[in-house]
């Protein structure tokens, strides 16, 4: 089963891209005087974060600041790692209802057609637009890194993790692929006919992925497969541990079915959606499976979500499950900290909620150097004028890979233009931008 190591397979199925350590000289910054949430120990009051060439090089009270460093005064402010949203489509959707700007899903046929639901080889990465206007809107709210994932499908394909600054994808990708996104439960059971059928189809596909080798395939010495060669190769990368299987399941029984499958096939599972996860928290904890939670979801919006509660994240964390949070949104991924604040309002500790935006997603998605402020950390840093989880708190500075990004978006530009409404006839005067 060494096929995934071959150049051909990797190229066809979307090569693994990992962020290289930023090497270009990007200047030296000293963020001084703030309360530094290192996420590796207790917060440091009046600490300094020293950033050089894209990395954090020193953190502490007694950091000597080199000559020529740009000083950022964070006195009275909070300093955290850049926040990570574990489930968005930032860069993949510009205007939701304008099809040409939506690069979320591969389409191979009518949605009701079962074969069209299997797109394991599809990877979103080539469709990510570094110039999306959603990116500045998101990052000026302190979110520096997102999982951009495919949308809907029994096997929707592979997502990527990107930093929210860069001219090219190479400057942005942290990990691609980040995981294989799969949906079970009500979302697809009307297509497969039954929940049991969904699980059977997935199992058969995984069996086929185990069976497939280049030689057997090229010789034609195999039975008919349930998915294309590329799809099966992509699934092999799940089976051999290169990426997790990210399964969206909501009903408690669907979550347990996902756990059974992960146990049978030995793949790394990440649960998402997971509305009723709190009801089977002990089983999830025992399996060591992490869960990505959207906090603000407490309606029985469908029959697989009857147990919906704002306390899902808090209850899971309390039972020992690793939890990361998501906005579950794209244009308003900027509301990620509102999700975390509400998790706290509904029983999660403040520290756990901040970890669910930093260290926990870094661990789940395998992002080395992310989610912490420690020597060697990638310099994604946010300076807040108050509690980072409070909705009224303003962002003072954002650094991504060691560069400060201006707190400007198309939205702030529109605002500034129309704040001069009295003089509306000059709004369109380019000299008065």
């Amino acid at each position: 089963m060494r096929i995934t190591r071959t150049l051909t397979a990797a190229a066809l199925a979307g090569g693994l891209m990992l962020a290289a350590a930023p090497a270009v000289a990007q200047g030296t910054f000293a963020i001084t005087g703030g309360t530094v949430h290192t996420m590796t120990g207790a917060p440091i009051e009046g600490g300094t974060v020293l950033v050089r060439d894209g990395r954090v090089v020193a953190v502490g009270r007694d950091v000597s600041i080199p000559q020529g460093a740009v000083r950022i005064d964070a006195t009275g402010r909070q300093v955290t790692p850049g926040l990570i949203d574990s489930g968005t489509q930032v860069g993949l959707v510009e205007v939701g209802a304008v099809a040409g700007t939506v690069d979320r899903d591969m389409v191979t046929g009518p949605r009701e057609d079962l074969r069209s639901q299997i797109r394991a080889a599809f990877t979103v990465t080539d469709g990510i637009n570094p110039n999306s206007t959603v990116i500045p809107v998101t990052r000026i709210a302190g979110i520096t890194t997102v999982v951009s994932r495919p949308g809907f499908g029994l096997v929707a394909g592979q997502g990527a993790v990107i930093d929210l600054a860069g001219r090219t994808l190479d400057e942005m990708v942290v990990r691609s692929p980040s995981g294989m996104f799969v949906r079970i439960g009500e979302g697809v059971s009307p297509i497969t006919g039954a929940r049991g059928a969904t699980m059977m189809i997935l199992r058969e596909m995984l069996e086929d992925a185990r069976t497939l080798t280049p030689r057997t395939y090229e010789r034609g010495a195999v039975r008919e497969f349930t998915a294309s060669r590329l799809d099966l190769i992509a699934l092999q990368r799940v089976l051999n541990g290169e990426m997790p299987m990210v399964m969206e399941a909501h009903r408690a029984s669907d979550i347990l079915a996902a756990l059974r499958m992960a146990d049978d096939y030995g793949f790394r599972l990440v649960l998402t959606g997971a509305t009723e996860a709190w009801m089977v928290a002990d089983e999830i904890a025992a399996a060591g499976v992490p869960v990505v939670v959207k906090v603000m979801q407490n309606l029985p919006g469908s029959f697989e979500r009857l147990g919906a509660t704002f306390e899902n994240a808090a209850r899971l964390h309390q039972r020992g499950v690793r939890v990361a949070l998501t906005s579950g949104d794209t244009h308003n991924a900027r509301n990620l900290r509102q999700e975390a604040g509400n998790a706290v309002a509904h029983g999660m500790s403040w520290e756990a909620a901040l970890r669910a935006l930093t260290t926990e997603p870094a661990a789940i998605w395998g992002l080395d150097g992310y989610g912490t402020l420690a020597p060697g950390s990638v310099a994604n840093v946010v300076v807040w004028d108050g509690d980072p989880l409070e909705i009224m708190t303003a962002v003072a500075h954002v650094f991504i890979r060691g560069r400060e990004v201006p707190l400007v978006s198309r939205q702030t530009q529109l605002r500034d233009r129309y704040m001069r409404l009295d003089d509306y006839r000059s709004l369109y005067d380019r000299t008065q931008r």
Partner: protein
Amino acid sequence: VLPYAQEITIMRTAVALLAAIGVAACAPTPPPAAPEPSPDDARVAAGAFESRYQPFPSTPTLIRGGTVMTAAGEVIEGGDLLLVDGRIAAVGRNLEVPAGARTIDAAGRFVTPGIIDTHSHLGVYASPGDQAHADGNEMTRPVTGHVYAEHAVWPQDPGFPRALAGGITSLHILPGSANLIGGRGVTLRNVPARTIQAMRFPGAPHTLKMACGENPKRVYGSRNQAPMTRMANIALTREAWIRAAEYRDQVDRWENGDRTGTPPTRNLELETLADVLRGRILIQNHCYRADEIANRLEIAREFGYSIRSIHHGVEAYKVADMLAEEGVGVSIWADWWGFKLEALDASNANAALTHQAGVTTVIHSDDAIGIQVLNQEAAKALAAGREAGIDISDDEALRWITANAAWTLGIEDEVGTLEEGKRGDVVIWSAHPFSVYARADQVFVDGALLHDRTDPARNPITDFELGIFSGEGN
């Protein structure tokens, strides 16, 4: 705009008149002269579909020592609020405890008016979402002034008690935006009930949902029907008002005693539109783009009605001066954007900018989650305004989800502020309501404690959720 009580009287009269016309229209052959309805006939017919709301039983309650945010310009530190017979009896400091009154210690907590949402689809798009619960858009023709949201609201929508837990005491349910004229909205008291009549806000004016822009032209244009363009959006809307004006004139002539010819036939659609022209129904107009909002003002000018509030108004900040001049309000989100082209030019300073221009600004939800955290939505809009350097007090921002919302629905004499004589709709918050950590500890509707976070017995559960995970999801 008429004073509240006068408006109600006129509405009752109108209902009676129209009912009388209905009686005439039902006769197989029109009689030579329309019969005068007996007073009894008129009363019974006029009573149909009226509010049968009864406040829940309450005991006199003194809420003591909280930060009382009145939404009427005053914030009283260490303030008291007294509820008697379902109404606010007094607001101030060091109020006396009447004999037999319950006392609630609100020290360290915050007291606000009940929160009001001007734009919700609870009950017409109820949870769980399913085609069987999709009752908000009558997408069979683009002008459906004859339908009423209240005829479809399911009182067992689990969204209602969840909204209550978020401090919502009154809410306005609207038809969707597929149609140019979508039908009547209804203003509700957020109380557990078996029927919609038992939730209907007594005396609240009827409203009419209108829409412009992408939704109507998408829904009908995709079927090769009109409207396919923004041109037809406006043409069909104007044609409807022309029919409405004719109908109004016919009915008015008949009612004023000129009974020559056949009596006007009762027409539910035109009856609604005619009452808009008579100033008895408040227009709630879904519209995103600045130029289209301006066109809405032109249509209103042409036919002589006023728009109460522009809903969603993602570009309202661009024409805030025009809205202020016309006395038209806005009901907008804190930050929704990007889901369609007409929602692209958003700014989260929208509310702050319209507020600054003097527009009666409301933060609405249009969402079954957002309605539960409307205080947070207002906070985000306030924060965006302050970041832009616009000076807005907490009390002013609180009005975005209370007093201004009440005005938008024409119920401002009854609710929306903590002032003596108003209905006893009150929320006690665990922290400043603009904090993400604030929870609605206690929620009173007409002085009755309907939600208490510390007492599971005071947490309404809909029939739907009984025996499933009752209370756990709340």
